[in-house]
């Protein structure tokens, strides 16, 4: 191949100007739009988290009042869940890489893809507008539990409406991905020749489509209650607040899998590449994604063990909760087995993947502790729960995203990042993270309740450790981002396949052209992860 002659323009160079971005229907550009908007919201969420940790550095009022603290943790939750974690991996990496990995040039409905980003922005603006209008942001917690959410004077209606719009955006992304995977795979790519990241996106997309409408209608009911002063979920007016909790968690527990499943898909891509081995148990991982999506529907009741449910119902939800751990464990064992006897290349993406496995393990096992009925009664609404879900969500999804940012850095931006700096920042993030969240598990066991701006003096030491951990971690994040931004200018030019990856995105140029492939992609007959040893 004579290189320079047929080297086509990258998707950046095809068109220029702001309009060519915000109205682009190219999946890579939409993915990047998502990346920058999600990244901004993530940083806002991080700052709010920092402020909360600062408030908790000592007992009593430190930097904010109780109500402010309630509003800060609500906004932190709403931003991190609805604006960052739920769209995160599918909207950014799914958009950029799903079509490339299945060997096509775009998603099935490019215009609907653009619409979903616009809806996301609109929802984000609604969420932020709660800061400046009326009585300030909601103080209900991100769960908007009724009847308090119906009665508080803060801006719940706007925040809830923001979540409704974001749900719409999420449904459209899911719908788009399902159709894309069904209709646009490369003719030679059967279902079981598909890489595991598309598999994870496929399972996630079904949850997005099937679970999100329930929260949509529930949130509309909350708004109607507030507008008309009704008692749909208010016991004094004949309603049932437990019904709200059911409706809320019917969506919001599957939503946890919307957040973590695609991240698991990222890990399934990175581990075989850096172990230079075919992934162990390909089919088991693919099926376990679908199993998690399926079982994940039937476990919502475990959020309500202490809020009033019949004995048999609690036992059943507890058993189902234990069941959903099985497919997650299958994946974890398979990743570890892939590394066994591999020719391991220690690079930043692998480090993040290993940290993912370690932290997801802690997050998963602590999940079993609160999934068990007896221990949950003790641990419910304590810092143990806060520690648990941050280990899964941040230690899991967040770390997988950081890893993927490095893994695909060259492919997306066309330059290589500085490996040494990346590894040092990884060290800070990893150490800071564990100092930040591990004390929370112990605090929870000691009985410190969540959602208070104040605590008893005996919890001070661990809270100080946790707050210092948050500084170390944020320092690491700043270093990581600085490194990535600097590398865009100063980095070496990225080759087609810097890691020796075997999936289709490594067959095209870095960054890819507008149509993704300049020559016909070759789908390996041996499956997606065949490494010639």
């Amino acid at each position: 191949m004579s290189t320079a002659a047929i080297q086509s323009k990258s998707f950046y160079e095809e068109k220029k100007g702001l309009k060519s971005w915000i109205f682009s229907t190219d999946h890579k550009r939409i993915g990047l739009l998502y990346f920058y908007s999600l990244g901004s919201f993530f940083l806002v969420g991080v700052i709010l988290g920092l402020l909360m940790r600062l408030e908790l550095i000592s007992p009593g009022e430190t930097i904010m009042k109780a109500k402010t603290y309630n509003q800060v943790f609500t906004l932190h939750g709403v931003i991190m869940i609805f604006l960052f974690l739920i769209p995160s991996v599918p909207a950014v990496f799914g958009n950029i890489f799903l079509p490339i990995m299945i060997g096509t040039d775009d998603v099935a409905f490019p215009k609907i893809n653009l619409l979903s980003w616009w809806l996301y922005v609109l929802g984000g603006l609604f969420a932020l507008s709660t800061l400046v209008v009326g009585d300030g942001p909601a103080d209900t917690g991100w769960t908007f539990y009724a009847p308090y959410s119906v009665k508080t004077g803060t801006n719940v209606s706007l925040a809830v409406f923001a979540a409704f719009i974001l749900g719409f955006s999420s449904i459209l992304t899911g719908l788009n991905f399902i159709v894309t995977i069904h209709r646009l795979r490369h003719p030679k790519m059967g279902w079981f020749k598909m890489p595991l990241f598309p598999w994870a996106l496929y399972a996630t997309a079904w949850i997005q489509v099937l679970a999100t409408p329930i929260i949509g209608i529930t949130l509309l009911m909350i708004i109607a209650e507030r507008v008309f002063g009704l008692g749909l979920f208010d016991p004094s007016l004949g309603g049932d607040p437990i019904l709200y909790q059911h409706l809320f968690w019917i969506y919001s527990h599957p939503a946890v899998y919307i957040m973590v499943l695609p991240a698991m898909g990222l890990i399934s891509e990175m581990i075989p590449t850096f172990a230079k081995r075919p992934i162990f148990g390909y089919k088991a991982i693919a099926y376990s994604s679908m199993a998690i999506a399926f079982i994940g529907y039937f476990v919502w009741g475990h959020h309500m063990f202490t809020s009033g449910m019949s004995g048999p119902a609690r036992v059943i939800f507890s058993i189902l909760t234990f069941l959903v751990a099985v497919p997650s464990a299958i994946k974890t064992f398979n990743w570890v087995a892939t590394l066994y006897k591999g020719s391991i290349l220690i690079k930043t993406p692998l480090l993040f993947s290993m940290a993912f496995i370690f932290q997801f393990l802690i997050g998963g096992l602590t999940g079993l502790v609160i999934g068990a009925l007896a221990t949950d009664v003790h641990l419910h609404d304590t810092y143990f729960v806060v520690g648990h879900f941050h280990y899964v969500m941040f230690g899991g999804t967040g770390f997988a995203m950081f890893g993927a940012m490095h893994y695909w850095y060259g492919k997306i931006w066309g330059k290589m990042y500085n490996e040494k700096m990346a590894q040092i920042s990884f060290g800070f993030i990893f150490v800071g993270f564990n100092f930040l969240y591990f004390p929370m598990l112990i605090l929870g066991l000691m009985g410190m309740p969540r959602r208070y701006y104040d605590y008893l003096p005996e919890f001070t030491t661990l809270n100080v450790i946790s707050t210092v951990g948050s500084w170390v971690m944020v320092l690491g994040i700043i270093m990581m981002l600085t490194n990535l931004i600097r590398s865009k200018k100063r980095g070496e030019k990225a080759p087609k396949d810097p890691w020796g990856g075997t999936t289709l995105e490594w067959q095209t140029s870095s960054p890819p052209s507008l149509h993704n492939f300049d020559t016909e992609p070759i789908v390996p007959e041996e499956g997606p992860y065949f490494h010639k040893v």
Partner: protein
Amino acid sequence: MANFVMVNSGHNRDDEADKLGMWLFLFTELLLFGGLFLVYTIYRYLNADAFLHASYELNVIMGTVNTIVLLTSSLTVAMSITAIQKGDTKMALTLIWSTIAFAGVFLVIKYFEWTAKFEHGLFPGMEHYNMLEPGEKLFFFLYFFMTGFHGLHVIIGGIILLFVIAAIRKGETNQGKFIFLENGALYWHLVDLIWIFLFPLFYLIH
């Protein structure tokens, strides 16, 4: 430029994909109403007598007429697909227009029905409503919320059909390519289907 033909391009015409996407969307619509049906079921179970008592307030005749109107509109929109398949564009347009006309009739009847309820002070927040017992309040709240939300879908469905008419006029939707009409009709059938469930739940169970 790509120097090969991508057979699986996302920019190719793919009616199957469009239809699959539409069915998935209809799925989400059903689940959206599913949440409301769930709430209705639970509160009906908890307040059976109050729901029964309140349901006598509704006008069965108006409800029945509206059911017939919507069923007929589904028939006309289904016939319009056959018409366009046979190449009879004029007939297809007439049939879609009559579907929209039926939608209008449905909304007008709904308007009179709701106005009667307003006159009785049964809308949430009104005087009579505030004196009702909790179960009856829930009934009327759900009645207004669910039929109102359904009415909104009737309006959306009608607007979609107007876009279909525009597409047929421009020739973008024609004998060889009528997926837009099919999808619009699918949406219309969904609107109809939801009403088929709302009608007995509110008007008929005695």
